[in-house]
């Protein structure tokens, strides 16, 4: 993989379309038709990953293929997804419904939820050391969220929640309280309309368990939804990474990490993840072991 081309591609994409994949008009699609007010005490913010998930899944597969064939890497690098590939991604399963499931669950608890638009939160820029880009993105996001007049941002995934809570204050003026939606549902004592049955293996997301320290809350949520929660070999604070964070830079290695984790998760044929990155990284490898991977929001959608 040509590292400098990749980093340059990400930078160009970010400047052109506000996200590392260079996709226009994708982020915020999940919220179409929800009809949320523009103002309220709580503002919902996806940070982009739920809309991007289907594209991340496809592009990392392509990068993996390109790396193993050692050809055409430049052509396949982020943001150069051909239009037919984009169409293919658009047809497959994504996580927009999962994000809507979260909104419905919050509404059921009576949360006064606003929507002020959506954007990519910038966390990958930070992870790669592209600090200027991260700062610009943080500023733009903060401005957008401030327009809602909310005092609390509700984030959908652990990376975004972490970025907003821990990183934004280091880069910009930021005074909003940040909650991960699972935290909020736990505090409000959410109870679903329909209860499911059966058992699921929970894959704790690294940022959820270790950085946000949300370990009991997702277990509580799954149990309230009617599932029995099975613990894989490494779970809770010692959870094993899905490999997703390096899928753009070292796709082959990323898939090996995912494959190792998938083996640990194979306690039941249903695996639940709490993050779109985990979902896209684990789906393929877990699929090889005949495991079905669901994102927590999808279960909320079903239980609403």
């Amino acid at each position, binding site marked *: 993989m040509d*590292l400098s081309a990749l980093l340059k591609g990400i930078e160009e994409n970010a400047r052109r379309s506000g996200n590392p994949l260079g996709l226009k008009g994708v982020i915020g699609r999940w919220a179409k038709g929800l009809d949320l007010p523009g103002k309220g005490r709580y503002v919902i913010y996806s940070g982009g990953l739920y809309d991007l998930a289907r594209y991340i899944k496809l592009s990392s597969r392509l990068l993996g293929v390109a790396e193993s064939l050692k050809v055409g890497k430049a052509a396949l690098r982020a943001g150069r997804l051909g239009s037919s590939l984009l169409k293919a991604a658009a047809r497959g399963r994504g996580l927009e419904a999962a994000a809507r499931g979260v909104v419905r669950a919050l509404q059921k608890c009576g949360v006064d939820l606003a929507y002020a638009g959506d954007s990519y939160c910038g966390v990958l820029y930070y992870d*790669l*050391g592209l600090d200027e880009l991260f700062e610009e993105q943080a500023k733009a996001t903060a401005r957008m969220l401030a327009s809602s007049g909310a005092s609390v941002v509700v984030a959908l995934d652990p990376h975004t929640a972490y970025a907003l809570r821990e990183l934004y204050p280091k880069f910009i003026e930021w005074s909003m309280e940040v909650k991960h939606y699972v935290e909020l549902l736990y505090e409000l004592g959410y109870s679903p309309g329909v209860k499911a049955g059966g058992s699921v293996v929970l894959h704790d997301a690294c940022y959820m368990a*270790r950085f946000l320290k949300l370990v009991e809350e997702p277990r509580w949520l799954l149990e309230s939804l009617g599932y029995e929660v099975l613990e894989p070999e490494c779970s809770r604070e*010692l959870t094993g*990474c899905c490999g997703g964070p390096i899928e753009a*830079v070292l796709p*082959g290695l990323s898939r090996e990490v995912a494959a190792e984790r998938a083996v640990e998760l194979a306690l039941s044929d249903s695996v639940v993840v709490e993050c779109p990155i985990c979902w896209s990284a684990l789906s393929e490898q877990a699929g090889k072991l005949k495991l079905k991977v669901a994102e927590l929001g999808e279960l909320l959608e079903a239980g609403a």
Partner: protein
Amino acid sequence: MKFSEVSSLLAKASRDRVLRTGLARSIKSYMGKRRFAEEASELASRVREAKEEAIPRLKELAKQAADSIEDNGGVAYIARTAEEARRIAGELVGSGKLVVKAKSMTTEEVELREHLERLGNEVWETDLGEFIIQLLGSKPMHFTSPAIHVTREEVAELFRRKLNAKVGDSIPELAKAAREFLREKFLRADVGVTGANAIAADSGMIFTLENEANVRLASALPEKHIVVAGVEKVYRTSIEAWMAVEVTMRYAGYKSTSYVNVVASPSKTGDIEKTVVYGAHGPRELHVILVDNGRYKASEDPVLKEALYCLRCGACQYMCPVFKITGGYWGGKVYVGGIGVIWTAITGSIEEAMLHSYACLLCGRCIEACPLKIDQPKMIRELRRRRLSSLKAR
């Protein structure tokens, strides 16, 4: 160096099934012993406090340790660079000597064995894992289990080929063959070289952990004992040094290691007319080379200084999802794993470290594994950031 070199190295590691099996076995066994670490977590947080006190005063403490060692009758040196450390050790050893060496990452860092061999000495690694690495002409793949990637069959084949040993594939047989071969070297050795896990500035006591008794022999039998250790191994007091030793063994997966060696001075006796003479049954000379090689500078770096807290227990390596696949191919020439990337930046090539940094998942499991809760992801991200800002500045 190019990123493609790093990525093909990692790809090569991913395809190595023998490596993967060896790693899986060691990791599984380590996870079974993780309770020893957990039992020591409170002591570990006290070691963190000790480190927080010691690292900002590194220069002063190294000087104090050197003075204590000299008061005790040893000779101490502070080597600013790897080259200087090699030169000092080379002058102490000379040429045509037989040297027995215990395992020490710092001697790997300063490439001591190669240097002493170039000067015309016969040098043997005496830790079994390191001995295997030496015969293979390879590099240590883990802080405490250097030969984590080699199977017994490979070791047997190696011993038959290189030592003319008549051995089968059984592990006790292999250990016996190494013992027989090295026993004779210990007895004849002129110089013993060891590392240190901790050094007390107040007393000059030097602590070394081990299981095999090779450190005992290497530090007791030869006439001359040379210790090579990083300056960050210095603690304020003997008690703090001991706490670090106990935490290191616990997090390395032992309730207790077989041995902890404590050396404070050359061997001496005053039994005849109360006149002290050096070199009773043990070494007549003790030389301690404290190595800076980037550590002083790192101690002033607001982000990287935390790496100097590292005890080299290897816990983070056992628990790292990337290490599980790449083993010691990842990290850099000498130091491996995520913490290895940072140590490569401090003591080796910053460029190499920066390129290796991109394999880190930033997943944070190493923080959970680490006795001192060292934040490796933070430092690794910082290396990426610095790389980009230095490229921009060009």
